[in-house]
């Protein structure tokens, strides 16, 4: 799947997840991904817009983009270490 110039290696559909929530699903996906790979997370949780960028920055990965997809938000994250 392509998002502009990026090839997405893994899609995590966390729509409707309140517990454990989209960020936990992202952390799980990142742990199971190779460095350099790209993960897309779908979220309907309003808190994700704050907490996903915060965690990605603190964990030292790269937030490639945040896209409003009409009804949900897509976050594209690259594992960098």
């Amino acid at each position, binding site marked *: 799947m392509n998002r502009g110039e990026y090839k997405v290696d893994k899609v995590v559909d966390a*729509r409707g997840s309140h517990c*454990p929530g989209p*960020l*936990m699903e992202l952390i799980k996906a990142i*742990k199971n991904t190779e460095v350099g790979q790209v993960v897309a997370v779908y979220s309907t949780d309003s808190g994700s817009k704050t*907490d996903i960028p915060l*965690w990605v920055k603190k964990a030292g990965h790269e937030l490639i983009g945040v896209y409003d997809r009409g009804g949900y938000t897509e976050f594209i994250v690259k594992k960098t270490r």
Partner: protein
Amino acid sequence: MPKKVVIVGGGTGGTITANVLARKASKEADTILVCNESQHIYQPGYLYRALGEIMDESKIIREERKLLDRRVKLVIDEAVKIDIQNRVVSLMSGKQLEYDYLVISTGSRIVPEEVPGYEASYHFYSLEGARKLHEALERFKEGVIAVGIGGIPYKCPPAPAEFCCLLDYYFTRRGIRDRVEIHYLSPLPRTFPHEAVAEAITEMMERKRIHWHPMFNIESVDPEKKTVNSLEGESLRFDLLVMVPPHKGAEVVERSGIGVDGGWIPVDKHTLQYKDYDEVYAIGDATNLPVSKSGAAAHFEGKIVADRISSEIMGHEPRAAYDGKVICFCDAGFKKAIYMSFNYENPPKKPRFSYMWYLGKQVVNRSYWSLILKGYI
């Protein structure tokens, strides 16, 4: 001729599925439940065993046979391979079970050894782990206790925060609370995934003087320096570390090539069917659904699957669909608890700690054997 329904795994979800199916399709289905163990353990009891509130383990253990409808055939054996192409489950004894419908409820397993230095930590995710943690807590006189998470996903996301609150209660009762620092290492920027709930839990933690550290996912432990290190690059010194171990799907799932990312089975979030195999379902911890790995999720999913299979066997269109329902009680000690209920569409509301929900949790604990596992509620 009755249809053969094989359920692999006799935890909460598998037991409920078997009992409901045996009632709904008593003549039309031949319900076979495969369990590794003859005993069934009420897993939320581990936390109370660790804190010494339950010392009589017979309160949380029952014979699986006694929990089942008499029409369910119980097979005590271990499933070693699931062949979904040929609809056969192979068992450790060498027996093979053919099926018309398959329900995989093999749960999760803990793999503490995946965290370097794990041997310096304790946990409450098995009976043996809870016993050892209890002994360590009884010896503990003063210092820093850190409670953190060694891997995602794990069973019951609120459990570590709940454990911190109950540690406050435990040390207060021992009269040494002032000599103990409790640190909660949250994997998230909040104390709980959902904002409204996090607000209530954070307030409670602050009142209880529990220090919480945002975005601290445990990567390793240094047993000599007694430090726990996060994958985000932070470190904390501890005197006693309680680490939720990483979890994985059952070995049979990995061996059978039906799991992804650590052995979790991908299923449709509403029908709970595996890929294009309409006769194969998975429920509970075994799935990769974005809901909490908990008995509550397995409970509701099991009832849906039993409904769908019995409908189809009786010639009806299976219409039951899982809506993501989970309910959850979180005990804060001092006889106060919160209750949450949510599904895919409706997030939890900000909960209130009360004695009423503490009693609610006690009622659930007691009704588990007689009502929940039987599928009556």
